[in-house]
C-alpha cells in the first residue's frame, strides 16, 4: 500500500521536495501584469459600459472559489475579475499555489490584491513573486483602476503608503479604488481613516470596493460610494458596471 501511495505521489505531486511550509519557493510570475496586459489588449470604446466581477476573502474555501469562477465564466460581458485579498489563511506558498490553480480556470483576466492574512509569515514576499507589487494601478475604458495595499497590523504596524495613493488618484480624471480593508474598519479606523477620507474627497473616485469584513456594507458619500463586499463563503460575488463615470454594484448569488 505504501509503495502504491509512493508511486502515485511521484507521478502526481507538484512539489516533491519542500523545505518548509514558510519558504517562498516561487519564481517571479507577474500574474497581475499578465492579466492587465490581456485585458488592455482587448479594445474598448470610451463610452462603452465596463462590466467586471469582484470576489473577496476566499481564504481556504477553495471549493467555493472554484464555483464562483465557474459561475463568472458563464457571464457574458464581464471584462475582468478582481479579488479583494485574503487569498490565503496563513500566507504559505502552497495556499497561494492552490488559489492560482483555481483562478487559472477563469476565462476572464483575474487581478488579485493582497489582504492582511496574505501578509502572515512570508506571504508578502510570496505575493510579490507570484502577482507583483501590492500597490498598482492600470487604465481601461477611460477609468483608472487603483489597487491600494492598506494592511497595517500584519505589515509590522506600519502606515499604508498614502502618498502613493494620492499621486495615483490625482493623475487620472476618473478613478475606481480597491483596497482590502475598508476605510472605517479595525486596522484603518482613526487617523488612517481620516487620511483616506481626505484623499477620497480631494480626488475624483466614482467608487471604492473593499473586502475584509466578510459582510456587505455600503457607505454613501458625496463624491464616492464605498462598498465592503461579502466573502466567498457567502457564495456571492459583486457585479459592477461603470457607465458615464457612474458606478453601480450588485451582489449576485451563485
Amino acid at each position, binding site marked *: 500500500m505504501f509503495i502504491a501511495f*509512493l508511486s502515485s505521489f511521484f507521478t502526481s505531486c507538484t512539489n516533491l*521536495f519542500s523545505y518548509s511550509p514558510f*519558504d517562498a519557493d516561487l519564481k517571479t510570475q507577474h500574474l497581475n501584469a499578465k492579466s492587465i496586459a490581456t485585458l488592455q489588449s482587448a479594445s474598448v470604446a470610451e463610452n462603452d459600459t465596463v462590466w467586471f466581477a469582484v470576489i473577496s476573502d476566499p481564504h481556504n474555501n477553495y*471549493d467555493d472559489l472554484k464555483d464562483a469562477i465557474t459561475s463568472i465564466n458563464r457571464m457574458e460581458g464581464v471584462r475582468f475579475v478582481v479579488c479583494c485579498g485574503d487569498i490565503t*489563511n496563513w500566507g504559505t506558498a502552497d495556499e497561494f499555489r492552490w488559489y492560482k490553480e483555481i483562478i487559472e480556470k477563469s476565462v476572464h483576466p483575474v487581478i488579485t490584491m493582497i489582504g492582511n492574512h496574505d501578509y502572515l*509569515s512570508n506571504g508578502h*514576499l510570496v505575493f510579490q513573486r507570484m502577482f507583483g507589487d501590492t500597490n498598482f494601478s492600470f487604465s481601461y475604458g477611460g477609468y483608472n483602476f487603483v489597487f491600494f495595499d492598506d494592511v497595517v497590523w500584519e505589515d509590522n504596524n506600519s502606515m499604508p503608503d498614502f502618498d502613493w495613493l494620492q499621486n495615483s488618484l490625482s493623475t487620472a480624471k476618473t478613478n475606481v479604488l480597491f483596497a482590502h480593508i475598508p476605510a472605517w474598519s479595525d486596522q484603518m479606523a482613526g487617523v488612517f481613516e481620516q487620511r483616506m477620507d481626505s484623499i477620497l474627497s480631494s480626488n475624483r473616485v466614482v467608487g471604492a470596493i473593499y473586502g475584509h469584513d466578510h459582510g456587505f456594507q455600503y457607505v454613501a458619500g458625496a463624491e464616492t460610494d464605498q462598498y465592503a463586499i461579502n466573502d466567498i463563503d457567502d457564495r456571492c460575488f459583486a457585479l459592477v458596471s461603470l457607465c458615464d463615470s457612474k458606478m453601480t454594484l450588485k451582489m449576485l448569488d451563485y
Partner: protein
Amino acid sequence: MILIVSLLLIGFLCFPVSVSAQKNHTDYLRPDAIEIQYAGNYGLMSVGLGQEFCKDILTSYLVLGYLPKAVNGTEVKTLAVKNTVEMKQFDFRKTSLKFYTGVSLIYYRTHNTYSRFPKYFPKSYYDFPTSLHAAPLIGTSFRRNSDKNGFAFFSELSTLDYYLVDFFRNRSINFLDLWNLSFGMVWHFD
C-alpha cells in the same frame, strides 16, 4: 518563545518517560541515535538527537533545522520533536525494512510568524499561534540487522496540520498535494 521551547522539550522528555519501562533511569536521556535529514518540514537540512524505545518500536528525536535565505528567498529556523511508531518490519537475510508513522511538533522561527502576536493586535484576532505546528508523517527505513551500532537510511512523506484542515474542507484539493518527500540517515550508537 520560552513557552514554545519549553513545550517542545516537555514533549521530547515525556514521550520516552512513558514508554521506557525497559530502560533504567541512568539510560534515560542518554541519546542513542543521531539523524541528518534533507528537506521535509524542518528546512533544507536538519539534525536530530534521539532515543529508541520498546525494542526500537518507538523513537523520539529532538530536531534542529535550517533553511538559508539564499535557497528560497527567506530564512526559516525550526526546532522540533519528532516521535514515530513502527507499523511493520520485514527482515530479509541481513537487512530489515521498517515502515513507521508519527508526528512532529514543530516550532518555526521566520518573518511575521508568531507564538504570541504583538500587542497592537486585538485579543483573539488570530485564534492560533502561527509558529507552532503538528506535522504527521509516514516513512520507511532500511538497516542492516548486523549493524546494531551502524547506519540506517530513511525516507519520509510528511504534511502539515494547515494542509489537512484545508483538505477536509475542500473536495478540490488533491490529497497527494499535501505531502512532501524527504530522506536522511541515522547513526545508531547503542
